């Protein structure tokens, strides 16, 4: 099943190229490239950011969906792990898909999701409860951007939508 997550990458590259980032099509530096570059440079960061979590379901989506931890305090440049928990409370299997949002918006550009559960359909059996991890990284360049001086909290919000019921 290793192929599963690998297969997703070309799809997302195409997605990125189709939608672009800020209208451009060029590929940004990957998170792994950033991590390697900052490790080589010996980058030191000091500011602690509290990453907090919101979870929502759209109307008609019979899942309970919550953040598993209240917050994760992290310094820019440290990759970090967080979880959400979802439970299908209905009596039929439900397939859902989630999207996410990062606020404040001006900080979103520094918030990198290395891997998560979003964008792909997820199917839960009736009564099934599952943990959904998010592995993320705040770019160290956050710390040297004066526009970020007043930001000590970042909120990551996910919303699950129902795709189908079977």
């Amino acid at each position, binding site marked *: 099943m290793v192929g*599963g*997550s690998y297969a997703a990458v070309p*799809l997302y590259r195409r*997605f990125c190229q189709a939608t672009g980032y800020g209208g451009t099509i060029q590929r940004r530096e990957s998170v792994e490239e950033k991590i390697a570059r900052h*490790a080589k440079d010996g980058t030191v960061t000091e500011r602690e950011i509290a990453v907090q979590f919101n979870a929502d379901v759209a109307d008609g989506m019979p899942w309970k969906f919550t953040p*598993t931890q209240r917050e994760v305090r992290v310094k820019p440049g440290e990759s970090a792990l967080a979880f959400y928990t979802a439970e299908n409370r209905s009596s039929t299997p439900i397939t859902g898909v989630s999207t996410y949002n990062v606020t404040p918006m001006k900080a979103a550009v520094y918030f990198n999701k290395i*891997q998560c*559960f979003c964008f792909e359909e997820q199917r839960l059996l009736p009564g099934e409860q599952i943990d959904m991890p998010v592995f993320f990284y705040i770019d160290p360049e956050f710390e040297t951007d004066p526009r970020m001086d007043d930001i000590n909290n970042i909120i990551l919000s996910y919303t699950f939508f129902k795709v189908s019921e079977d």
Partner: protein
Amino acid sequence: MSLSGGAFGGNRGLRPVPPEKGVFPLDHLHQCDLEKKDYLNCLKSSGHQSEKCRQFSKKYLECRMEKNLMARQDMSELGFRKETETNGETSEEKNSKRIEV
């Protein structure tokens, strides 16, 4: 499936960006539940500081790799440095250059 971006956050400014390494397969068999619990308990007891619980998040991701729930790769590529360079930095690391914008 295609996500045109219109319905999902299209009117919220920055468009959603897919995750770098794709999507985590769900752990339907709960194979890494113990590692997850260890990590979460660590967070609770250490003021939710990610740095203090790095070894547990590392163990969780390693569990995923073992169970084929995550592509295998060297943990240092994901930001888990070797144990030698940790909080007790030498003075040369403390004075290391910060990024100039």
